[in-house]
């Protein structure tokens, strides 16, 4: 009976696929228990909350990066847009006397707009996404330095910001959940629904899987790309606000290298650099894996330069394993 069950190719295929998909998740869980055994406090509630809080902005940026990568592009400007957004939101409140919520709306609008410019450069400027967003990375960073005059804008006294740094919601199941984590959860769930159930989500996969085919089938390819880069820009701006809240001030050098962390997280989570393959959930698991690795190594007092090396090796190894299992699958 069992042999008949496993002898069936389809079931073999499904089982292998499931194993491959959950591989990163299994590694994540194993790693968590390993760090807990080594340090005795990794799985304590306080530390887990810490891990979540430390990684909220990376996870949010990774969601946007995943959308762009699924559509076959890349967005290198998210770190700079996050920094600019942080500066703009802090500046609007501190210098212009705007309220917290209006400043958030304007900031998200700025992120959306800069993302649209990225999309426009790709769609109408016909620039490769790498070049378009690399330019935006420089421009947005420059605008940040210009706007802040290379000085941090402190928001330590802004009450609303205090809530989005230290406040929490009492959620069913999860209990007291830090406010920034709740924001990330809402973003992830919304975008997952968007990708799974809407025409837009379907079209993102289609554009990444075969742009010309999608165009010939009547998919509004240009509109899909514009919206995708705009969403990525907006999520980067959201991450910038939360990052500003976390470090008490808008630093002109916030978010340097954030784009690479987001790409690493997405790739680790199974999102293809060539578009069309992957999921938001996978990318989140990839992001958490990087976060857990960093936190665990900190608890174990691993030197920071060694940490960077280990992260690099993990990324390369994970992608190699992924590619190997995929090839294995195809042979079947």
């Amino acid at each position, binding site marked *: 009976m069992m042999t008949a069950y496993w002898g069936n190719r389809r079931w073999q295929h499904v089982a292998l696929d499931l194993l491959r998909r959950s591989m990163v998740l299994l590694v994540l869980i194993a790693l968590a228990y390993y760090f807990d055994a080594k340090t005795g406090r990794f799985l304590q509630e306080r530390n887990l909350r810490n891990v979540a809080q430390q990684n909220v902005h990376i996870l949010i940026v990774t969601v946007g990066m995943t959308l762009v990568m699924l559509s076959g592009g890349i967005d290198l400007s998210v770190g700079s847009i996050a920094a600019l957004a942080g500066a703009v939101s802090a500046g609007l409140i501190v210098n212009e006397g705007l309220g917290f919520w209006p400043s958030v709306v304007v900031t998200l609008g700025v992120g959306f707009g800069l993302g649209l410019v990225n999309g426009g450069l790709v769609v109408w400027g016909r620039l490769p996404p790498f070049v378009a967003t690399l330019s935006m990375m420089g421009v947005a960073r420059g605008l940040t330095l210009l706007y802040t005059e290379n000085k941090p804008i402190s928001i330590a006294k802004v009450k609303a910001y205090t809530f989005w740094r230290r406040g929490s919601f009492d959620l069913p199941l999860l209990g007291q959940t830090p406010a920034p984590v709740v924001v990330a959860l809402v973003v992830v769930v919304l975008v997952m629904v968007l990708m799974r*159930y*809407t*025409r837009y989500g*379907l079209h993102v*996969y*289609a554009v990444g*899987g*075969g742009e*010309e*085919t*999608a*165009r*010939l*089938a*009547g*998919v509004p390819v240009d509109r899909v790309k514009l919206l995708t880069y705009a969403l990525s820009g907006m999520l980067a701006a959201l991450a910038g606000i939360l990052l500003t809240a976390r470090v008490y001030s808008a630093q002109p050098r916030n978010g340097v290298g954030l784009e690479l962390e987001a790409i690493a997280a997405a790739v680790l989570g199974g999102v293809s650099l060539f578009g*069309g*393959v992957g999921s938001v959930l996978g990318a989140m698991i990839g992001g958490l894996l990087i976060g857990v690795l960093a936190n665990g190594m900190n608890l174990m007092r691993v030197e920071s330069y060694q940490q960077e090396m280990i992260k690099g090796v993990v990324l390369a190894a994970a992608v190699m394993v992924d590619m190997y299992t995929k090839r294995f699958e195809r042979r079947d």
Partner: protein
Amino acid sequence: MKTPIVEVRNISKYFGSVIALNGVSMDLYPSEVMCLLGDNGAGKSTLIKILSGVHRPDEGVYLVEGKEVHFNSPRDALDLGIATVYQDLAMIPLMSVTRNFFLGSELTVGRGLLRRFDVKRAQRIVREELGKMGIDIRDPHQPVGTLSGGERQSVAIARAVYFGAKVLILDEPTSALGVKQAGTVLRYVAQARARGIAVILITHNPHHAYPIGDRFTILKRGRTLGTYTKAELSREEMIRMMSGGEELEKLEEELRAFGDQAARGLANAFHEEELSEWA
């Protein structure tokens, strides 16, 4: 006389200094299969890309059911029932059969923010439509990449028929297929014709074109050499026109003029090899 469902008159198309099409005219009626024949670079792809709204003609008129049209995108052509199945660009291999089937014309339920892809209904329709054409898809969830080439073409044809295509343009649907699979695809073409659909079939293979075709338009270097009904054109003549038989004969003559017997043998061998490729 009936109005043709699709007609082009004196269509020209230039790409820079390259003349892709030079005053081509063609018409097409419901329930017929028109084979578009010609060598590489003869302008077949350009012509079908104009018909399907990818390119706009630089000169000439394009009429659909007697009315002049100007398409800005493939969507415009699709909306008038002109569907094209491209050889390599028919489907996205990474996506499921169902999602491919409804790509660009997604079924949705709900309104406003709650509008979403109706997976259940889509799957039922896919199974039914493919069943009607005798294609048994084991699992509508499976990626198109796991289907065979023949199955992919068949799904693409079924999709076009389901979405109410009046004109079906097939770009080399059988070129990458084995004998049996090509037969399956040609059977679907015949089915589509029986349903009153006008089909334009592009192929390099006279053994696929001749049995299914009702009329044959032959293109050469951006011009038409004419349109023939099956009664006017024997299989041998068609093969000769498709293979550039005249040029081969000329080549043979030239070589003969050199009096080089070996070279002549070579030309013959070349010709035979080509013929055997079709078989």
